[in-house]
């Protein structure tokens, strides 16, 4: 695949993520923050996000598996996940967190379990997509090309 094609692929791929709602404009903001002085900003932040989220999801699973679920512990975790996912633009993860929090407030254990599953699903999805995205970017960079700036035309 030549450079131009790779760049086109990347753009199309990114576009599709936005169209599917996996990512939102916040991600674009992050991309715009990346520059020469900060070349790996996006991947750094996303990596941090993955680390934090893995930990949170783990804690959530543990908390919800308890005999008696302590919602006072569950809620802050979900809240944090909501905050970080919204900060990087992982829209669907954020939305799933919002639903999750509502059920937390109602202290509905069953529903919370389902929500957790939903959040995990969305999270793995966005993780997967972003990893693919970064791979594409790396390929372009490795081929000596520039990563095209995303346009907000869609």
């Amino acid at each position: 695949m030549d450079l131009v094609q790779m760049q086109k692929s990347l753009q199309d791929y990114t576009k599709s993520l936005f169209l599917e709602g996996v990512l939102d404009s916040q991600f674009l903001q992050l991309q715009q923050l990346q520059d020469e002085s900060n070349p790996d900003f996006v991947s750094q932040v996303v990596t941090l996000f993955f680390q934090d989220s893995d930990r949170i999801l783990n804690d959530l699973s543990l908390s919800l598996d308890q005999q008696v679920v302590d919602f006072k512990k569950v809620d802050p975790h979900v809240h944090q996940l909501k905050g970080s996912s919204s900060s990087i633009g992982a829209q669907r993860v954020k939305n799933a967190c919002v639903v999750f929090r509502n059920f937390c407030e109602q202290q509905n254990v069953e529903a919370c379990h389902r929500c957790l599953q939903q959040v995990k699903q969305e999270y793995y999805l966005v993780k997967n997509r972003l990893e693919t995205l970064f791979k594409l970017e790396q390929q372009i960079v490795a081929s000596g090309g520039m990563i095209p700036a995303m346009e907000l035309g869609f």
Partner: protein
Amino acid sequence: MTVEQDFEALDQFPVGMRVLAVDDDQTCLRILQTLLHRCQYHVTTTDKAQTALELLRENKNKFDLVISDVDMPDMDGFKLLELVGLEMDLPVIMLSAHSDPKYVMKGVKHGACDYLLKPVRIEELKNIWQHVVRKSKFKKMKSTVTNGDHSLGNSDHKANRKRKDDDQSEEEEQERGNEKKPRVIWTRELHNKFLAAVDHVGVKNAVPKKILDLMNVDNLTRENVASHLQKFRSALKKINNEANNQQANMAAAMDSHYFMQMSSLKGFGSFHHRPIPLGSSQFHGGAATMRHYPSNRTFPGMFPPHVSSSRIHNDGGYIMLQGLPLPPLDNLHINNNNNNNALPSFTSQQRSLMVAPNNHFVPEGHQQSSSSSPHLEINKRLEDWSNNIPQSNVHSKPDALKWNIDTSTTEPTSFCRDTDFGSSYATTQADFLDPFQMKQHQENNLDPMTVAQLLRSSSGNEGLLFMGQHKLENDFMDSDAASLDDIVNSMMTQQEQSQAEFSEGDLGFGWQNNSLRTCI
């Protein structure tokens, strides 16, 4: 990004503005840091609120602005906000994923300059420097009085220095430096000083200038004192009017404690000449002087009406007086069994009675005798008046009249003048007081005559001014009135002569009024 171009060249500020960013979420912190860098601020980050505080305390002038997340594990963001505002007086911006207005409200109430929602956008961060300018400008305004320096260039540093000066001189006013015009908050201490000053010059001679000089408080203006004095006087007047109208009503509800109080109220006639026991739970009458204001806000001379159960003891009303461990009481020569005799002695002794006994006067009723709620109501009100702490324990402290006890809150420093005794009365009854009370418990539940007497005697007595601030409600008087009439009548005659003694008018007695509502 054209962020750089957006900034005006304001002596380079806001470029290089030093921001401290606090967020336990690594992802958000990293993003925030980059966004702030993009705005050309100088950024320091930490994921722990404690670390942030340490950094700030290390050098207050190191930062211009703090941005902090609300939900942090080691410390609540609002708490950090408060501490930063109090200790360093820096502008703080809250950050949160909570869009719930109540959080925003909380932020505002705790002093946040702004509240941003996550995810934060760069547009919002571009203008945060305005908070720094605003705050320093405000500080400059305040310190203009002291040094008249208006330059904005080095505003941050100058503001910091000035801020320190301002803070020290504003202690009395409990200012956080966020308001345009510092409002004088009449704390208990301040009020007590005021009372002492008024007492010293005499209510009739009380002029703002003299009082201000006597009070010797920084940052208190003649105007502050004048308006406070005006309120004071009008409250006194009100009380006196009420007293005249309510004597009969009061009789029923008052118990001997009350009477005691009344007697001592009489003593207030020469209020300023007598030592006023302040704020101790004992009636240390002798030792206290008018000027000794208890640290609580009680006004010397206020007696919380002793709330007793609905049982009315006609005798022993004065017995209670005897029980009071107040030095002044010694002078009272109260005869247990002879109420009538006691009365006259009271009058003379009253003067020497200073407030402290208030605590003892805690109405028994406070101790959960809800049977006589109307009485309780009054007593409670009076009690609240004289108690520094609007909590159930308060009663145990005989404090001087409280100027502004708000029984509905437990905030001793609240100046809520509207003491709504009725409702909270029952709750605060517990423990009210003291052995003295116990003693009297049996005897005194209501000594109609004492009440009546007190009422009468207090009418002329301005000493209880503060008490007077509260108007006692009439309604609580009803229950036992009928049986007390006779006693009251007999008491009345005796009291008449003592009434004359009350008219010194130093401070009005407010205690007569059941519903002490201050309008200050």
